[in-house]
């Protein structure tokens, strides 16, 4: 058989093009993963430093200058510690749980546009994809709590699944306003629509949705004041009580990636992503030369800082109160916000 | 939300201790064995049979109203006194600010006394501790178990015939023996495969 007869030159071209595309995507994945994981490592450092200084102490100081190498030291420690598996644990599920959790969180990075045209998979249902994946992440938490065969872990898992499910609704509803304004589910489109709007960022017209989203985002990632699944003083560490070493590190990474994700989502949907509002650019025109990814990262880190700041300030809710807030306050408020947005949109359409 | 206020107010001082002792004597003439006074603290020594009704009287009588059981404990007189144990109730009235001490004699061969948990709920753990340390039974106690010592402890440590280092001071405690045994078992186990 002659191969040349089967594959026409155009097919070869197409194959080469496909190969290049794949290579670019792989490169992008590598870049996002490497930078993402580095950010996760330094997010922990950033957290410890910020909270440390807020609590009039110094935070990590011993490893490297000002403790800059602390994340690596922690990583090395975690990866070389003994991996303890409880004798009564459901072994297979116990192994799988952290992987599910971590994978579900990481997959989401693929749809995040870090800059104009820098996104691994520019799908047109980006928002829905993120919700779907976050939904899968709950399984990781829940089955880890179940598989540990520990009552504390079980309660943590139960709490977490209830929490994530109920707050997902609030969060989804809070973003509906944004979707309505942008008219798209594609994350890049949302950013572009924002940049072109008169407000520059949706946090201003959608401030109710913004507040609901921020609260739901804190809850979704199990952070104080909504860190009930972990609730150190009640459930010791909740669903990952029985996990150690590498497997614990996976949970840890997953949680911080989820945080990055929530911060990115907030940046994308409410803070304008890589763009700057036009009025800022009008005052400081030179800022337009700064690459968009810088703004994106800065906004993400500002949101991170907010996470830490909140953590350093407030106590923890009780489980039932927390659920009550989700169902009785956030969801109605978010629905109200949708109605309001729709109403305003219709009125504006009529007027203009 | 409740508001907390700051007060300096105090209730008037109550009845003198000797008088309270007199009142008890009047009410239960048969029961009072002795009244002692040392450093302005009066103790009424009573028989144990009616102890519950005496204490109930002290709690319920409006002019006395001893609502606070400060302390409940026992003394082991060993062979210093005829009756081996004395159960001591230190009472105080937060209303009238007067105090009294009641001591009920409990003989060794019948180390039982009525529980005062129905009068003061706080006596619950006091009595459990007393049972734990002295082996005095409190009849009518809802949950009379050892409290500070393990359930399988032998003896009652605050009795005077209990040696300071415990019985057989050199003996290892059972838990320790178990640990040693287990470690010896595991010694043969190959950890690194």
């Amino acid at each position, binding site marked *: 058989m002659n191969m040349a007869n089967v594959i026409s030159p155009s097919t070869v071209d197409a194959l080469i093009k496909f190969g290049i595309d794949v290579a670019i995507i792989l490169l992008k994945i590598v870049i996002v993963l490497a930078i993402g994981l580095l950010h996760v490592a330094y997010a922990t450092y950033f957290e410890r430093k910020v909270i440390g200084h807020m609590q009039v102490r110094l935070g990590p100081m011993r490893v490297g200058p000002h403790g800059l190498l602390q994340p690596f030291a922690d990583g090395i420690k975690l990866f070389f510690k003994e991996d303890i598996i409880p004798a009564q644990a459901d072994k297979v599920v116990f192994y799988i749980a952290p992987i599910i959790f971590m994978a579900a969180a990481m997959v989401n990075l693929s749809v995040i546009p870090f800059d104009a045209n820098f996104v691994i998979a520019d799908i047109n249902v980006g928002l829905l994809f993120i919700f779907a994946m976050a939904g899968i992440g709950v399984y990781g938490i829940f089955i880890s709590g179940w598989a540990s065969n520990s009552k504390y872990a079980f309660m943590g898992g139960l709490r977490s699944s209830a929490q994530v499910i109920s707050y997902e609704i609030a969060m989804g509803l809070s973003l509906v306003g944004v979707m309505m304004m942008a008219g798209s589910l594609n994350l890049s489109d949302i950013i572009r629509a924002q940049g072109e709007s008169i407000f520059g960022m949706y946090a201003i017209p959608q401030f109710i949705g913004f507040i609901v989203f921020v609260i739901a985002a804190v809850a979704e990632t199990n952070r104080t004041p909504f860190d009930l699944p972990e609730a150190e003083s009640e459930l010791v560490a909740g669903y990952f009580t029985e996990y150690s070493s590498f497997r614990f590190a996976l949970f840890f990474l997953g949680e911080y990636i989820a945080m990055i994700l929530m911060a990115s989502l907030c940046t994308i949907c409410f803070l304008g992503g890589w763009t700057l509002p036009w009025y800022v650019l009008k005052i400081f025109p030179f800022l337009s030369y700064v690459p968009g990814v810088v703004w994106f990262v800065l906004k993400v880190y500002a949101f991170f800082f907010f996470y830490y700041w909140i953590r350093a300030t407030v106590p923890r809710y009780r489980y039932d109160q927390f659920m009550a807030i989700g169902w009785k306050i956030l969801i109605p408020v978010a629905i109200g916000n949708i109605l309001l947005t729709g109403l305003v949109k219709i009125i504006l359409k009529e007027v203009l | *939300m409740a*508001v907390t206020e700051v007060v300096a107010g105090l209730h008037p001082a109550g009845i003198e201790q000797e008088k309270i002792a007199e009142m008890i004597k009047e009410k239960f003439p048969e029961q009072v064995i002795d009244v002692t006074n040392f450093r302005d603290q009066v103790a009424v020594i009573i028989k144990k049979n009616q102890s519950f009704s005496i204490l109930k009287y002290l709690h319920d009588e409006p002019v006395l109203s001893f609502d606070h059981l400060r302390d409940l404990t026992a003394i082991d007189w060993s062979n210093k006194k005829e009756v081996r144990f004395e159960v001591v109730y230190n009472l105080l009235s937060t209303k009238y600010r007067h105090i009294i001490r009641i001591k009920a004699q409990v003989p060794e061969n019948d180390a039982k006394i009525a529980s005062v948990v129905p009068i003061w709920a706080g006596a619950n753990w006091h009595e459990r501790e007393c049972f734990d340390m002295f082996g005095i039974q409190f009849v009518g106690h809802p949950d009379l178990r050892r409290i500070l010592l393990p359930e399988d402890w032998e003896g009652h440590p605050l009795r005077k015939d209990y040696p300071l280092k415990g019985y057989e001071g050199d003996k290892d405690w059972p838990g320790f023996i178990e640990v040693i045994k287990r470690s010896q078992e595991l010694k043969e186990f190959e950890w690194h495969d």
Partner: protein
Amino acid sequence: MIKMQEPEKIFETRELNVNMGPQHPATHGVLRVVLDLDGETIVRLTPYVGYLHRGIEKLGENLSYFQALPLTDRMDYVSAMSNNIGYCVAVEKLYGIEAPPRAKFIRTIVGELSRISNHLLWLATHALDIGAMTVFLYCFREREWILELFEMICGARLTVTYPRVGGVRNDISQEFIDHLVKFLAEFPSRILEYETLIDQNRIWLKRTVGIGVISAEEAINWGMTGPTLRGSGIPYDIRKFMPYDAYDQVEFEVPIGTAGDTYDRYRCRMLELRQSVKIIRQCLEKLPAGPVMADAPKFVLPPKDKMLIITHPVNEIAYFIDEKACKGCGMCLRACPAKAITGEKKKPHKIDQSLCLQCATCFVTCKFKALKIIPGGKGQPEEKLVELSAQPVADEFKKAQEALVAHFDFIKKGPKVPEGEVYVATEVPKGELGFYFVSDGTHKPYRMRVRSPSFIHAGCLERLCKGHLVADVIANIGTIDIVLGECDR
């Protein structure tokens, strides 16, 4: 009317049995709480204590009154000073002596400092349990300051052993007062800092208001004391009821709550912090000059400088047995730690000067005044000692000898106490700390009983928690302010 049909029993449900503790971040030590849960609601709660039982009562019966003082440090180790004071006040009552005014004021100052430090630790851990971790570190910042003040006066930070029966160990220094004044000026603004973070915080209110409610009657019936009781509205404060130390000479108010819930107990303690500052200020202003140890020669350690002539000799001394006075009882022979004394029964003993350590043990044991301390007698031959012993003894030297005997007596045995019994309670930060001493006329207590507030409060835990959620158990353990060292003794 249609009767509801009983659904078929397919699933058997039972309560979830959870062990909280002995190792748990929120049980404040080694408290074990067994919870029976229906979902997250508590059906049954059983506290188990005793993991830290060290038999302090039994130990106290085997140590002299002076020696048993450090044991009280180890009961409530977060406010050791208050425990020491409680012990000293009780033993003073038993002895029938009283500390001098200056010592009383100093004790009141350190007692209130200890109250502040205890409440700070309580607030820190309570807030941390409820999730406010910054309050924890802010509180520790100030607690550290207080511990430094303690170190300044007595050289120890935690287990202070500073008060003594009949006074305090040593006088306070000017440096301490200066630092204390600085602390008092700064501290009220720090209280505001904690309150900014939690006092009006909606989450804090949700977690504390209406949690662990107990009515006044019930609280007193359960034997609660201290701020835990006062949160329910009963102004029972021993500092007011039966003043000890200098509390009758200072003005202060007793904060009480109304609702008897966790929030009210928290507010009570916060107001108590301010009252403590007020008390310390007054004490400092009123602090009189004067002795810090009671002039009660038999009951307190005698001054050391009086016997310096013997114990710090310029010309070294020698011990010598007067043959005429010696009855040969053998007391010194047995007592001598160096075995330098030889002799037979009923015959005068002799000291081998080459073996003698000059420790004065023989001197204080001899009941017949046969032993003589000879200044400048060291290394002298036997004849010279006989000669020197005949010389009259100087007055000062005689006094020193008396002081030496008193000192040895005090250390070896301790003061004897008349037969009797006292129950003396003091207001420690956690509540009513009572010491019940029964003396049989010897130098050791026949029975030493400690009524520790933590023990009683731990017993109330079930009453407070029933029907609440798991998270409220943490809030309730925090609000009763227990330390297991004190609870188990």
